[in-house]
């Protein structure tokens, strides 16, 4: 039972990171290697703001929002000066460009924050556990699960219901037509890209008390987020949400039934999934 709750926690943590990744793919059709690095920068920025012991949940969330803004701006800069300049070339050059951006980001983090480990504690209020029907659940787990669900609901609403989402969808499907309809396409793309990258920063801030900060932090989540995004169907936020939960559960069952081979089930599960549903659970989506 605890495995389930914890699987959900892991899943939601991964979803927080994967959401931005899948959106970037939906808008620009690139698998962004630098996403993990942006996540890491978000975490470092937030940690510089709150110090090692945040005073309240609000302080943590506020720091996460600021981190999101910083990373969003960073994302816009990257989009403007790097990705946009090569978007008409070959899509694979986007891949190499994001890889290069990742290297620069990691180097930058090393220079600014150094190599020593940094740690941020859960703020008071979510630093203990609660008893739910006799099951001990850390309240920070609930915080992560809640954050994941909120982010998902907001994203889902924006994409499928709100005007902004429709506009972005129109741009993603047919930029030329959108322009004809009077939508400011460059501004729209910029906002969407900024928003997607900002999600990485937000995730970095929210997950801050969950793990330790080191320049390798980006790698920890990047691969899991890649897997989630692919299993869920590229560009599909709902798919990523479901896939993230599945991933968390698979990993949980792994520790339960195959404790001698930690972390292996995720890969095996992914290979099996891809062979069964080569287009992801909910299919690919252009946003």
């Amino acid at each position: 039972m605890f495995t389930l709750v914890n699987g959900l926690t892991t899943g939601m943590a991964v979803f927080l990171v994967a959401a931005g990744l899948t959106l970037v793919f939906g808008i620009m059709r690139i698998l962004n290697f630098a996403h993990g690095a942006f996540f890491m920068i978000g975490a470092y920025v937030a940690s510089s703001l709150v110090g090692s012991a945040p005073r309240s949940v609000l302080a943590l969330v506020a720091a996460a929002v600021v981190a999101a803004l910083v990373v969003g701006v960073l994302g816009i800069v990257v989009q403007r000066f790097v990705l946009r300049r090569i978007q008409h070339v070959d899509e694979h050059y986007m891949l190499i460009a994001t890889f290069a951006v990742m290297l620069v980001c990691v180097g930058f983090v090393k220079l600014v924050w150094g190599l020593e480990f940094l740690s941020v504690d859960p703020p008071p209020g979510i630093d203990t556990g609660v008893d739910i029907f006799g099951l001990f659940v850390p309240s920070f787990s609930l915080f992560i699960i809640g954050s994941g669900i909120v982010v998902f609901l907001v994203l889902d609403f924006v994409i499928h219901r709100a005007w902004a989402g429709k506009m972005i969808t129109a741009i993603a499907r047919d930029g030329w037509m959108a322009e004809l309809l009077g939508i400011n396409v460059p501004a729209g793309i910029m906002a969407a890209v900024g928003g997607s990258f900002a999600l990485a920063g937000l995730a970095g801030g929210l997950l801050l008390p969950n793990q330790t900060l080191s320049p390798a932090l980006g790698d920890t989540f990047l691969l899991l987020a890649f897997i989630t995004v692919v299993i869920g169907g590229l560009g599909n936020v709902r798919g990523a949400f479901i896939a993230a939960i599945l991933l968390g559960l698979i990993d949980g069952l792994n520790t339960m039934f195959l404790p001698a081979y930690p972390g292996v089930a995720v890969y095996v599960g992914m290979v099996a999934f891809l062979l069964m549903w080569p287009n992801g659970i909910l299919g690919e989506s252009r946003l």
Partner: protein
Amino acid sequence: MNRTISGALLAVLAAALVLLPFWANSGLVFLAGTTMVVAVFALSWNLLFGYAGLASFGSGGLFSIGAYTMAVTLRGGYEGQFLLLIALSTAIGGAVAFAIGVVALRRSTGIFLAILTLALAELLRITLAKIHWLGAEDGIPSIVRPKASIGVATVDLAQGNHYYWFLCVACALLVALCWWIAHGRFGRTLRTIRLDTERAAFMGVDTHRYRLVAFTISGAIAACAGSLFAPWAQIVTPDIGNMMRSTQPILFTLLGGASSFWGPMIGAFLFSAIEFSTRTLVGIQEIITGGILLGVVLLFPTGVAGAWNALVARLADPYRAEAKAKATTLRPVKE
């Protein structure tokens, strides 16, 4: 004109490589040997990507299979049959690639194939790190450089720079093989599949079979490169097939230019040159490598080979080059 300049340059570079041990530092010689092997490895990857339109992110796994096969058989005392061992490693790599291709290619292409192969390579790495018989994480060290006998002549590859020259010959042969595959009828047909799979099918081409064959050949050559690498580095570890290894050929190919046959090799040598010339700037390696990659991508979006072709074409015939450069962003594979 274009071809003459490029050909002359190629010849000069090849000669410089062969003569390297006579004038360069042994570290540079080692790096050059490593680069030759990964250049061939990158070439094998581009055979799949630039010709069949399939992007694998798990090629490092096949490289690893080749390297481990060689390491284990050499440790097992089969040094006498070195050439046979290379063939064996190649065959095993090909067989594994074939098996993966049979299962994976029918169902997934594009990014899904990329992620699938990546997952398989990671699984292989994790598995290798757990097998004590294969040295677990520390791998198999102290691999001997054996004697190679061709008919009557026997060369002791353990001596001096003999293995380096052996690598030169072996890599040249592999490059020639790739060139032949890429430029012959098979390569032409593969290109039609990358350019328009459906159109190719409506010429009566069994696209799935061609892709499978390309996948197998590419895997076999990757494993062959791995098998050549094991006695060169004299140690193999599970990390020999990690994600960095798998992204290596992708970086080299895109840096050099995927649309050119020589692109992956140019990329490999350029990358090594960058790394070597910045080796003393410790601690900011990532920024340097990343910055240079970014610069190349932004300045030469067709890769270095594309930029070179454009430059040579402009020198040769300024007017036509202009028109050509405007008309196509991605140029056909030439040479």
